[in-house]
């Protein structure tokens, strides 16, 4: 799994650095832009979003699967739709829907990166969203450590 570094830079507040993982449904590539929340139901063909600018990073907080028994689109197609609407990257908070990781594993070659975030990192990010504080986000590809982790060292 390719790890992602997510730098969240809210206006007038200290930046926070979070970690996520790139979903293989899309390209593994850096991205940056203004953070914008999207309701899960906004990523349906029957919904529009008044936001017309492009060049933003979408964050979608996924709910427990039983709360949306008949999703309008698959998660991969929701990510695709978000990209078509101008998102440079899509962040999915999968804390409440771990099945999302499997749904977004099959490569589809989406050009905008899809990053999964969960747990404490997701809580911090959604905290920024909840305060409705404008923020810029930079998504970077986390380089693997120079020295691979060995369990046993020979001295």
């Amino acid at each position: 799994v390719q790890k992602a570094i997510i730098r969240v830079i809210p206006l007038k507040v200290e930046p926070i650095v979070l970690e996520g993982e790139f979903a293989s449904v899309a390209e593994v590539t850096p991205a940056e832009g203004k953070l914008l929340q999207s309701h899960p139901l906004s990523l349906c063909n029957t919904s529009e979003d008044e936001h017309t600018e492009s060049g933003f990073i979408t964050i979608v907080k996924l709910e427990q699967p039983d709360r949306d028994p008949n999703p309008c689109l698959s998660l991969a197609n929701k990510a695709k739709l978000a990209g078509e609407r101008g998102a440079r990257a899509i962040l999915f908070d999968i804390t409440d829907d771990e099945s999302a990781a499997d749904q977004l594993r099959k490569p589809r070659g989406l050009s905008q990166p899809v990053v999964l975030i969960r747990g404490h990192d997701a809580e911090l990010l959604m905290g920024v969203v909840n305060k409705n504080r404008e923020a810029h986000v930079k998504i970077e590809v986390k380089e693997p450590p120079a020295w691979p982790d060995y369990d046993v060292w020979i001295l």
Partner: protein
Amino acid sequence: MHPNVSQGCQGGCATCSDYNGCLSCKPRLFFVLERIGMKQIGVCLSSCPSGYYGTRYPDINKCAKCKADCDTCFTRNFCTKCKSGFYLNSGKCLEKCPDGLEANNHTMECTSIVH
């Protein structure tokens, strides 16, 4: 607030959550997406706001925006009041009235020519 069914939900929500607001509405209400700055939440209303029209689907009733040149509409393709600079003609918004009709700048509609 942990996602839950009704406790703590706004107005007409059937289900809701902290971050997304309404996830589903009580019967007959319309689901509307509301963008407030960076946030986007779901809201449930008894009727769609101005500039939107309602559509009833089997699992959800939704409000969607009228076309860009239309202020109020009945459906996506049937406008009832056009935006400034457009004339209403049979549910459509036109910059110029077709031949045989004249532009009424008072009502902003295309009307038959009175001889």
